């Protein structure tokens, strides 16, 4: 009897809820009466989608790529974030491209090129069989259009940055770009630039369709049109970007029909999705998940070759201990790099120079400071800081490819420096805030790192340690290290075309930098990607992204 009552009670309540729900949906229904006509459309399109599914069954290959953040813009000339570049690298081509495994260049939109003796005039012969995704032919005029566009405003960050353009001189070292034929382009430079060709292969210099740029204006970044192996299809902000195979690609056409870039911010959640099979490939693997991946017969680890560095910069411009060379050397001696690197879970190799050993010009003669607390104490005493001091360490909260666990690394250093009575206060902020703070020289010490853009030592040394880049407010050199001798060497290496001479110059600069110790260099990493075993022929590029036309996926 009682049971029956309970059942009735539950039943009535459920009924009430269902009724309530019914009322709600009814509301929604009446609210959208003017959508009635689109209902026909939607039934049509649901037919379409079932057709899609059918074709999928007959062998459409889709690669789902999981990553931590959405792209900012799909106009590569305006961005510097890796997540935008990852996608634009599929949509656009550059005049030359990097080879699959290193930063040597190979033909892409340009078939052939030559340079004048003094290195100031470059002539490129272009392919004649290339079409933009919008159907327009690719010609020399289009190259000129793009370069002229980039030289019109400071918005085009990498252009300014690589070609020395500034607000006063928007063109930088590129004096002119001319179409000297339907399929021939000539660049005239104001001074020789050794890394010029390498630079042109950087994804930010992807050639966009002038028609699309003009048509979309401000909104071009969400309607990208290039010549690359994949055609842009759809962008759902913070969720996914879809690109489809370019059947008419002039190079090797893609093996997969569709690539979906999915944003899953949490590293752990992304890895779970990979294990569950809902994504095929992911970046930003937590280092502690490497073991799990290797043990899983359905998964594989793919290691990106190393072309980066992580370091702790010491702000030499600040009054106090950090302006003393002896103190900076003492810090170098007081941190046990080997122990610290256990936090890299096997993906990091100890660093002693500002450039990675895979680059030419690396000075292996330089001997790292080593771990020696007594010597560190002695140096501190010599500098007049026998009793130690308080100091700040700024760190980013988010993992970076060159530093998988910045928070933990900071805390380990904090504890190690206690041994020499240096009391570290950690200031942790998100990536943008961290950059702003360090560029404004607010820090005593700060973590940062760099992934090479074009495989030239200049791209590390000049950017990160030259006095030209030590301007408060926009510094790349956040140690604010100013050494005229180093500056002269780096400047000379920039305009010198002979690589052997340049090697000598960089070697010498590295020795000077080692002695001055503006950094505590930490590690060079091989950032791991995790993938399903079904993904084959994926060759990660040292610069951090690569076109996906060569990889394949087994169904």
């Amino acid at each position, binding site marked *: 009897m009682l049971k029956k009552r309970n059942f009735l009670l539950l039943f009535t309540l459920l009924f009430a809820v269902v009724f309530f729900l019914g009322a709600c949906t009814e509301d929604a229904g009446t609210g959208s009466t003017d959508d009635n006509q689109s209902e026909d459309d939607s039934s049509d399109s649901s037919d379409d989608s079932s057709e899609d599914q059918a074709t999928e069954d007959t062998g459409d290959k889709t690669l789902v790529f999981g990553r931590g953040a959405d792209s900012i813009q799909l106009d590569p000339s305006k961005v510097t974030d890796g997540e935008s570049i990852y996608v634009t690298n599929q949509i656009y081509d550059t005049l030359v491209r990097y080879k699959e495994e290193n930063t040597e260049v190979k033909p892409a939109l340009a078939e052939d090129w030559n340079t004048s003796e003094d290195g100031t005039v470059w002539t490129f012969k272009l392919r004649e069989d290339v079409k933009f995704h919008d159907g327009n032919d690719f010609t020399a005029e289009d190259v000129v259009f793009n370069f002229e566009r980039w030289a019109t405003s400071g918005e085009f960050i990498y252009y300014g940055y690589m070609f020395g353009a500034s607000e006063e001189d928007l063109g930088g070292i590129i004096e002119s770009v001319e179409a000297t034929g339907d399929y021939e382009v000539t660049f005239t430079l104001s001074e020789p630039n050794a890394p010029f060709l390498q630079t042109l292969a950087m994804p930010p210099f992807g050639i966009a369709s002038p028609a699309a740029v003009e048509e979309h204006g401000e909104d071009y970044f969400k309607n990208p049109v290039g010549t690359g192996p994949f055609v842009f299809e759809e962008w759902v902000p913070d969720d996914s970007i879809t690109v489809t195979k370019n059947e008419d690609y002039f190079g090797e056409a893609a093996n997969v029909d569709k690539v979906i870039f999915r944003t899953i911010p949490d590293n752990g959640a992304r890895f779970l999705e990979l294990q569950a099979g809902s994504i095929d490939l992911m970046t930003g693997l937590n280092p502690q998940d490497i073991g799990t991946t290797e043990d899983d017969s359905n998964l594989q680890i793919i290691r990106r070759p190393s072309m980066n560095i992580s370091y702790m910069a010491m702000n030499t411009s600040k009054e106090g201990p950090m302006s003393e060379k002896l103190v900076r050397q003492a810090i170098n001696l007081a941190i046990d790099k080997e122990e610290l690197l256990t936090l890299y879970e096997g993906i990091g190799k100890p660093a002693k120079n500002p450039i990675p050993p895979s680059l030419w010009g690396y000075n292996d003669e330089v001997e790292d400071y080593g771990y020696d607390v007594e010597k560190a104490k002695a140096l501190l005493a010599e500098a007049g800081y026998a009793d130690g001091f308080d100091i700040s360490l700024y760190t980013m909260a988010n993992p970076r490819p060159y530093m998988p666990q910045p928070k933990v690394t900071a805390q380990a250093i904090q504890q190690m420096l206690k041994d020499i009575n240096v009391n570290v206060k950690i200031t*942790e902020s998100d990536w943008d805030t961290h950059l702003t703070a360090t560029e404004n020289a607010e820090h005593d010490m700060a973590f940062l790192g760099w992934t090479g853009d074009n495989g030239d030592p200049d791209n590390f040394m000049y950017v990160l340690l030259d006095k030209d880049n030590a301007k408060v407010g926009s510094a790349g050199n956040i140690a604010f290290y100013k050494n005229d001798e180093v500056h002269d060497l780096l400047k000379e290496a920039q305009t010198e075309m002979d690589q052997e001479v340049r090697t000598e110059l960089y070697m010498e600069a590295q020795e000077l930098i080692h002695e001055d110790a503006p950094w505590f260099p930490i590690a060079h990493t091989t950032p791991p990607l995790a993938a399903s075993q079904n993904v084959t022929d994926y060759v990660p590029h040292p610069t951090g992204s690569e076109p996906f036309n060569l990889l394949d996926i087994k169904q």
Partner: protein
Amino acid sequence: MSLQPNPLPDPKLAEAQETNQSKSSSLWGDAFSRIVKSKTSLIGLCIILILIITAIFAPLIATHSPTDYASLTDRYQSPSSEHILGTDELGRDIFSRIVFGSRISIQIGVIAVGISMIIGVLLGGIAGYFGRWIDQIIMRLIDIMMAFPSILLAIALVAVLGPNLRNAMIAVGIVGIPQFARIVRSAVLSVKETEYIEAARAIGAKHGRTLMQHVLPNCLAPIIVQATLSIGTAILDAAGLSFLGLGAQPPKPEWGAMLSDGRAALQNAPWVVAFPGMAIFLVVLGFNLFGDGLRDALDPRLKQ
């Protein structure tokens, strides 16, 4: 996070006070015996006492340093006799960190609720006592604050002040002001009309003095109940802020921050997340149980 302004809003509490001001001494006596009789509030009281004892004797109870690791190779060890709750991402002993974290929790509870209470009681007291346009202005301000979900307001405040534990406590404190203000206002409204207060005013007592010496003390019961319940909420809120990286900074063993740092290893070392969360849960439960008990005890409506 602050999903419960307080676990069981009780609009009738303040009204009930009306009838009971004269018998306040027996009220407190009754309240005490009620609490002792109620099993749940005793459990709550026990949890709170354990928390306080842990905080005081933390150095004696902890087996390891809360902030220093012994070796980086000891990272992510599962619970064992050496580390009874395992070790975290730096190889630190989780048990010791939780033990020392109790100090931070008490600090958060006291400071954040202190801020809410002092400002809230003053605003509510003034609004209720003086009435008219002062009341209007204060209550409209309170309405505006209440128009924001409290976590959003707290996040925005921390973003303005800068992310650290102190600012997180301030933000949580500010977000809690409206609760106190409203409760105190309605309590004052009912107390104000009693003969006792009118008598004080009649013999020429100044407003400030009447408010502080006669009106507010008679509103003590709802304030105490609200404060107890708010401590739980404040700890939860501050832990949430720390979890989002907007509160305690390393190497502070704050429970929410510990949980957030352990997230990366959820799959391989779930204990790094599990235990600090359990600590938060237990402490908040303790304050909620005790607060509930207090309210039942101080609420004469349930007297039989």
